[in-house]
């Protein structure tokens, strides 16, 4: 009879057979790299514009420029349109009042629903150098529960009178702290050094900003996550559901699953590889049901909070 260890070896070897094919995965990598390049190019253009604007526009007084974005409810028309799903929203309640010089807000991301035990819902704000050729950045996340704190290698940290954990990260190289801010809100800060992470952590105040896209569409799939990046002039939005993705960008095409949203933006809908998908007609129907409620604008992109 085989030992447990031998059975494990056999199992792991047989597991190899279930691997996806490289031919299936490669196009996704190419698209991801292309998306990555577009985002970085957009950010570079935005940085150039920002530098030009800074010559004539007074610098925004720190902490006074950003108000919470309106939720979709606030912009919903008085008579709701047929589509039943109101755009995804999650509120980040923890905002920094100090950031290293040169960083601007370059992304917001939210997981509205927890999709796996141990991986709670969150809203994250990302701040990166205005010049995208420079390294370094900061992530500030408001988690619904404690998330992925390593079991070893952490040290106690003190943030605004609260005790949490801190640890060095390797990819990217830096430091991360996490502390329970209050019930249902765990603050997580990543930065290039411990000192920076702690200084940002100690600057946090309760101030709500929304991660949302004011768009509605036919309700036939649960959308659970959203990401906004790029620049104000060329935003790049992705929303993920269990069976679909919706990408909003400036790419125009003639697919029936693409819908013009105005202001040079287009919504593209598609299925996620390897997952259950709807018939194409359903995706077309969802695309046709897209409605924007309010201006599809992200004024915080490229600005300091």
């Amino acid at each position, binding site marked *: 009879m085989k030992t447990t260890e031998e059975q*494990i070896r056999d199992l792991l070897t047989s597991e190899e057979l*279930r*691997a996806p*094919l490289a031919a299936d995965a490669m196009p996704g990598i190419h698209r991801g790299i292309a998306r990555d390049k577009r985002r970085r190019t957009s950010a570079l253009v935005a940085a150039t514009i920002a530098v030009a604007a800074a010559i004539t526009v007074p610098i925004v007084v720190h902490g006074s420029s950003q108000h919470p974005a309106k939720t979709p409810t606030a912009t919903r028309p008085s008579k709701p349109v047929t589509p039943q799903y109101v755009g995804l929203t999650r509120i980040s309640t923890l905002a920094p009042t100090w950031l290293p010089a040169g960083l601007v807000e370059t992304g917001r991301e939210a*997981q509205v629903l927890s999709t796996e035990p141990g991986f709670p819902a969150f809203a994250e704000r990302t701040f990166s150098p205005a010049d995208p050729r420079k390294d370094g950045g900061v992530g500030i996340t408001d988690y619904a529960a404690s998330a992925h704190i390593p079991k070893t290698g952490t040290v106690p940290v003190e943030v605004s009178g609260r005790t949490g954990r801190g640890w060095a990260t390797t990819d990217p190289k830096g430091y991360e702290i996490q502390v329970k801010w209050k019930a249902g809100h765990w603050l997580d800060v990543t930065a290039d050094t411990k000192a920076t992470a702690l200084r940002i952590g100690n600057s946090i105040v309760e101030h709500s900003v929304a991660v949302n896209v004011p768009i509605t569409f036919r309700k036939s799939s649960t959308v659970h996550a959203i*990401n906004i990046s790029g620049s104000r002039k060329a935003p790049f939005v992705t929303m993920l559901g269990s069976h679909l993705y919706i*990408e909003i960008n400036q790419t125009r095409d003639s697919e029936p699953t693409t819908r013009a949203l105005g202001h040079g933006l287009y919504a593209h809908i598609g299925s996620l590889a390897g997952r259950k998908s709807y018939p194409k007609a359903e995706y077309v129907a969802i695309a046709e049901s897209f409605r924007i409620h309010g201006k599809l604008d992200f004024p915080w992109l490229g600005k300091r909070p």
Partner: protein
Amino acid sequence: MEFEEFAAARLQALLRYATVLTADPDLAQDLVQDVLIRVHRRWRHIESEERPEQYVRRAIVNAYVSWRRTWSVRNLVPFGSPPERAAPDPPGPGQSELWLRMSRLPRRQRAAVVLRYYEGLSDREIAEVLGCSASTVRSHISKALAHLRVDLSHHRFQEAT
């Protein structure tokens, strides 16, 4: 070596590795794609490492244990692409119980088991990959084996009765 050459040559091996690690072909594909997209950004730096594939494998393990399903991760399929390939079924009946138990292990324990029994790494090497001490690695593997042994013996007992 250019990134494209590396990806073309090693992608299938990385997908196999990630599938063994995660027991989930979809997640494996997500992880490998996400890691390679990030690697592409820093390829010049990574290429200069002595063993770039080892770097990528470490990144896959780290992405798995510290997971956040970030956005470059998902494999978005525009229409007009080739039809999706259905994921194969889990291993056969003889291994299904062990497979199920393995898939329920905490991620760090599973990663430690995979690195030991699939990759053949030592405690010290596993500790380096997971960013913990060798004693923690031993603890992970010991707990995982205890869990699997108990569950398997329980399963066999049930079968016998």
